[in-house]
């Protein structure tokens, strides 16, 4: 038994040596750098492509695919072409962990772009910490992956839910000049974290909520909560929840005669959201972590739409590109820029240094990115969208920030 194990171990060692020989001869300096050859850099793309969390996973993949193909078409990264492997975590945290490990251990990728859902990202935190593979997040917003920071994990695009809460609270006080603020929040992790952050910020600024209500994600009737909110006659009602309940709340609030302005989080930032709500959406606002709306006439948006529709006609039919696609694309552009800055002697440590060198790096559609030693949340700002009478969306000029000192 023991003899057989030794023989097996020796055979493995021999195969390892044989495999390593060509690496020594052709790429001596990068022998231990996963995913890098003279001609290619291998990237793993991880996201929920099926299951209930698929909204953003498909955007993460589509955006990255377009940005990586553009980089290859423009000559690649310092002479190397990008190659990528995409894995689906099926909206399941355990499968996400398995897929991430497979990308790192089996496919030996240089870096991972993803995952694309908060639940999966949160579950992966110990795995992130245990490894050193650079991991770049572009679409989900749980603070768990950046607070406290993990040296090899970066995010840009959506600011995290805690910061969104701060930005919303400041915006409501500074721009909407609200005196009486009400809050309706989802009872899960997402709504709780964002809602508590709103409350904390308001308290810091000596404003207390006139009404603080909770709902469950599968609720369909919000009369009880909304009736209590209406009795307190707020100027602004902040709705912190997923798009579907938020849409129903907005509709029922108008039906019950709420006069307050309704303000939503990034999750209400989808292109189709106004139509899903219907006429009641007119006049409501929500924050959106983009520089340019995907449906706008901005030349960069038009160009992205055209490319997207050509690449993914099936997704375009579903009303895409949308928030997740643009965030995925913008994130992948930042990712590509850092790969270029890391230079021809590409190493994972060098790539992390290059990411940290990005200061106010602008992309065409997303907000500027700043990383640094100790800074892993690349974007800490958002813009505000106002839904018009014809249900189109208008980007307001204000930029709301999650930093001290409120909106600027």
């Amino acid at each position, binding site marked *: 038994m023991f003899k057989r194990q030794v023989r097996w171990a020796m055979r493995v060692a021999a195969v390892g040596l044989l495999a390593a020989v060509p690496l020594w001869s052709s790429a001596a300096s990068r022998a231990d750098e996963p995913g890098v050859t003279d001609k290619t850099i291998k990237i793993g793309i991880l996201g929920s492509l*099926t*299951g*209930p969390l*698929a*909204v953003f996973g*498909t955007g993460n993949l589509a955006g990255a695919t377009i940005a990586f193909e553009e980089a290859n078409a423009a000559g690649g990264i310092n002479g190397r072409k990008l190659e990528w492997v995409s894995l689906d975590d099926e909206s399941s945290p355990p499968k996400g962990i398995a897929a991430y490990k497979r990308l790192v251990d089996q496919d030996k990728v240089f870096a991972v772009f993803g995952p694309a859902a908060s639940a999966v990202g949160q579950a992966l935190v110990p795995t992130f910490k245990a490894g050193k593979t650079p991991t770049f997040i572009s679409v989900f917003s749980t603070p768990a992956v950046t607070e406290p920071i993990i040296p090899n994990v970066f995010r840009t695009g959506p600011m995290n839910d805690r910061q969104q809460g701060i930005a919303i609270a400041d915006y409501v006080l500074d721009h909407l000049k609200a005196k009486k603020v009400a809050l309706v929040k989802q*009872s899960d992790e997402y709504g709780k974290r964002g809602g508590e952050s709103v409350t904390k910020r308001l308290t810091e600024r000596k404003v207390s909520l006139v009404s603080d*209500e*909770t*709902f*469950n994600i*599968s*609720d*369909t*009737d919000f*009369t*009880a*909560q909304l*009736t209590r909110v209406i*009795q307190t006659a707020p100027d602004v009602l902040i709705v912190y929840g997923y*798009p*579907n309940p938020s*849409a*129903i709340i907005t*509709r*029922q609030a108008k*039906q*019950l*005669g709420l006069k307050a302005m309704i303000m939503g989080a990034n999750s209400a930032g*989808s292109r*189709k959201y106004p*139509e*899903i709500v*219907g*006429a*009641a959406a007119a006049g409501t606002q929500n924050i959106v972590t983009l520089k340019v709306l995907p449906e706008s006439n901005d030349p960069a948006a038009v160009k992205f739409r055209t490319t997207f529709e050509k690449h993914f006609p099936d*997704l375009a*039919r*579903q*009303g*895409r590109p*949308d928030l997740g696609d643009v965030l995925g694309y913008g994130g992948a552009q930042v990712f590509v820029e850092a790969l270029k800055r890391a230079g021809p002697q590409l190493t994972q440590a060098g790539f992390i240094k290059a990411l940290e060198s990005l200061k106010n790096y602008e992309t065409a559609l997303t907000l500027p990115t700043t990383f640094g030693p100790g800074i892993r949340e690349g974007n800490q700002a958002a813009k505000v969208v106002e839904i018009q009478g014809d249900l189109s969306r208008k980007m307001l000029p204000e930029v709301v920030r999650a930093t001290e000192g409120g909106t600027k």
Partner: protein
Amino acid sequence: MLAQVLVSSITAGAVYALIALGFVLIYKGTGVVHFGYGDQVTFGAYLVLIAQALIGLPFWPAVVVALVASVLLGALIYGGLMWPLRNASLLAQIIASLAMGTVLREFVRAYMGPSAWPFPFLLSPAPISVFGILVVPANLAIVGVSLGVLALLFLLFERTFHGKAIMAACDNRIGASLIGVQVSMVFLAIWILSSVLATVAGVLVAPLLTLSPDMGLIGIKGFTAAVLGGFNSLPGAVIGGIVLGVLEALAGTYVSSALKDMISYGILIAVVLVRPQGLLGVLAMKKV
């Protein structure tokens, strides 16, 4: 305030009732608990969107096409799944129904996308004030249709020869076939009828609940309403639905909106413990 909450909760209850009716119809008619029914309701609403997108039809003709398509879907479910499984255990049939729901749900997610779709209200969503209580016509339609469907199914089962044949076929397959009832045709009819009912429910509730692949979660509430009503009683399904809606609203108003599911389901457990046959159910007893 209480009056407004109660009026609104009846709409929520009517949605549960409409779906509960589907559960009870299938159970009464074929003996299967169709756990994929919520997803089938969602799929019914998506059929309208698919007809609009694929054939380019306006809304109402698309609804007609969806209803016709759901007849075919019902026939397909029976012919392709339930007929081959007719001699399998009940558990296998239930698992098959669950799997079918997953197939439908993941199909719409892949084909129509994971995010929500706008879906028009059949009647105006603008409220009308009746004695100071706001009433929404679109919601009244759901209550009306639930009661209408209940009345139709009730007449069918209790007052017609065919309905009696269905009950006979379900109670005793061999006995019914001995006296000339074509059991397979009866089951086929039930699956088609329930499939059409799913589409009707889907079209009505989609604008209210927001249509997305996960709208079928409402099936759990429908199932609960059916259990509350006794699971083999059509009026019980409607009463169960309304009771569940009102319970949720009262718990949300007077106790806590975050705890309302816990409270209303806690009451459900209590009801089932005290009255296992449900509010209107008849206790099935085997005489030996």
